[in-house]
């Protein structure tokens, strides 16, 4: 306690009292009122029954595992058995998010390398600006663009059929091709910049040295660039994975009629479903599974958490 007091007095004497108060108040409102308390409330709420407002706080308002039990053993649709429906959606969402992350990594690695190591000066600045500009366009509009592109009378089908690659229009929306392409597009920037930052600080001489020693380009990348860029790869992949798994707009607009994203189930419980505690439980499940998955993958690839986001 005395240490905290000393910290505060040091902090105040360093910044002056008014500034110190501003700094501490702003940061604590942000972290506690906007981040931590809402999360804790949601966590608590997920252990409650779905009660009408007058009964909230009454004797029936007790903690329960009902919402989590429903996720595992739903009783309405599956008849008391394992809730394969929702679990399958969660699993599919995670697999698709991994898939999108890998696509983004494969697409972005060469771009980040070329930008960081090959281009200079104003060309580089212009290229970076060209990278950012598409992401100032509204997320909904970007998804809409992919709807136009992949529709049955869209440009892709038009060009494909004109070239004679296929005869009848392919249902890209129903096959989720449009969804994956749109999601990969939506978060490309979050993959490129960590990669770019990591690769840019690599000394060109290391690459030159490896080349002089007779390494092929593939070997240079495998032995020199990729190990060096590992923190960048890890933080880019983490961001893309988390945001893809938590995406709502793209699946709503680009998802085929039979496909469901886990966030859409949460959305349904909050809106048409009218069951907020269950929606909260599903959100907690999504958050927990995603975090555990990211930690697991980082452990497998031997990356520490501190390296993320640098």
């Amino acid at each position, binding site marked *: 306690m005395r240490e905290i007091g000393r910290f505060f007095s040091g902090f105040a004497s360093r910044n002056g009292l008014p500034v110190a108060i501003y700094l501490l108040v702003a940061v604590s409102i942000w972290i506690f009122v906007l981040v931590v308390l809402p999360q804790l409330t949601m966590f608590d709420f997920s252990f409650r029954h779905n009660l009408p407002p007058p009964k909230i706080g009454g004797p029936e308002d007790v903690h329960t595992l009902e919402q989590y039990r429903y996720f595992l053993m739903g009783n309405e649709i599956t008849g008391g058995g394992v809730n394969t429906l929702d679990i399958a959606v969660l699993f599919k969402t995670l697999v698709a998010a991994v898939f999108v992350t890998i696509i983004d990594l494969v697409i972005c690695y060469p771009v980040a390398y070329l930008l960081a190591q090959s281009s200079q000066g104003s060309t580089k600045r212009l290229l970076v600006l060209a990278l950012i500009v598409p992401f100032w366009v509204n997320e909904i509009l970007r998804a*809409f663009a992919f709807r*136009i592109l992949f529709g049955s009378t869209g440009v892709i089908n038009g060009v494909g059929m004109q070239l004679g690659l296929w005869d009848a229009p392919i249902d890209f929306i129903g096959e989720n091709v449009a969804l994956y392409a749109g999601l990969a597009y939506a978060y490309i920037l979050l993959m490129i910049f960590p990669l770019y930052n990591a690769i840019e600080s690599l000394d060109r001489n290391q690459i030159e040295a490896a080349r002089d020693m007779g390494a092929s380009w593939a070997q240079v990348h495998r032995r020199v660039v990729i190990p060096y860029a590992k923190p960048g790869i890890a933080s880019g992949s983490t961001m893309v994975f988390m945001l893809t798994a938590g995406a709502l707009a793209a699946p709503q607009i680009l998802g085929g009629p039979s496909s469901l994203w886990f966030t859409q189930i949460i*959305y349904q419980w909050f809106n048409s479903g009218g069951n907020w505690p269950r929606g909260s439980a599903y959100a907690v499940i999504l958050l927990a599974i995603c975090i555990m998955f990211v930690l697991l993958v980082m452990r497998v690839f031997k990356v520490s958490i501190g390296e993320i986001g640098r």
Partner: protein
Amino acid sequence: MSNLKAFPTGGLYLLLFFLYLFGPLVVMVVTAFNSSSFPRISPWECLTSDWFFKLFADETLIAGLGNSLIIGIGVVLVAVPVGLAAAIVLSQVGPHLRSVMYAVFIAPILMPGVVIGLSTLIFWDRLGTFFGAAYDSFFYNGMFLTIAGQVTFISAYSMLVFLSRLQRFDPTLTEAALDMGASQTQAFVKVLLPFMTPAILSASVLAFLASMENYNTTVFTIVAESTFTTVLAQKVRYGLDPSISAVAVIIVGVTLVGAIIFENYNRFRTHKEARAAASAIVPPIARFATNPLVIIGFVLVCVIGFVAWVGTNDSSVCEANIEQMKREYQQEQLEQQRNRTTAPASEPAAPASPPANGGGGVFAPGNLAPAQPEQEEAPASPFGNVFAPENLQGGN
């Protein structure tokens, strides 16, 4: 030395990549000028600007835009000071505490927007219930909730902007000010804040844009109100309509102009001296004309001029033509259909197995299918003739 030359595939790859980045946007922008009621490039019907007028007449979208502007300004006013405070606090703590705090501060960016949205909604709802607040109080107000939800993660964005600027701050400046007798508050206001001004500006722009385009969080926190993005999402989900492409034209245009201004401003700042030295050698006009941004600006002016020209151009004649053509085509189809349904009845082979329902083979499979071998001359696309060059002449 350039690796772009070392492997030409690199340049080709970048080209393909930027095609992927801009292709969808270009296609979307082009569809805004096609009179076809479904947003598409082919078949091209008529050049029109009607979708823009339809857009401006859309009151829900305009109301949503108004709400979005208010929310955006609110978010900037809260998130930027919070982000600045977080960055300053981070720069003052020891390395161990710093990495812990950094992880906490960065977490809202990684958290799914859906989770932030609904946790904000539940928290204020419970708080309102706890205080017994009325339903029209701010606890249940969509605008307030949306600002609270968006500030949660947009503060972290602006913190990142401030952190990178703070790295270049020379703390001896503050020390000098203190030595000269300034109070700490004065040093903060007169030394640190002016140094941070460019970062404050770019963090504000970033926060405003992030607020405007956010959907995942907003869709939960907005409750009964609507923002520009949620209205747009509703429209897109309800049905595709080229007036959404018209929105895209405006946003892409504004974005490009913003990017050009931003880039020019940066150049102006970083190359002020270099430019002054160079202009002595190269004539300013030549330098001006070869500047790629001037070229982009010129292209942009041309595009705007094109839109204005389309606006004055009357597309109704062309549209009437298309309408007429569709009707004729339908008529033709109908006639062919009729011919086909009557044909089997007169065929001698048909009576071999008289159908029980007495329908005369009308329901026999294949009779209704349009793709009969003898119908080869009928085009696969429903508006096939539209493509014929002579049809388009009426429009322009």
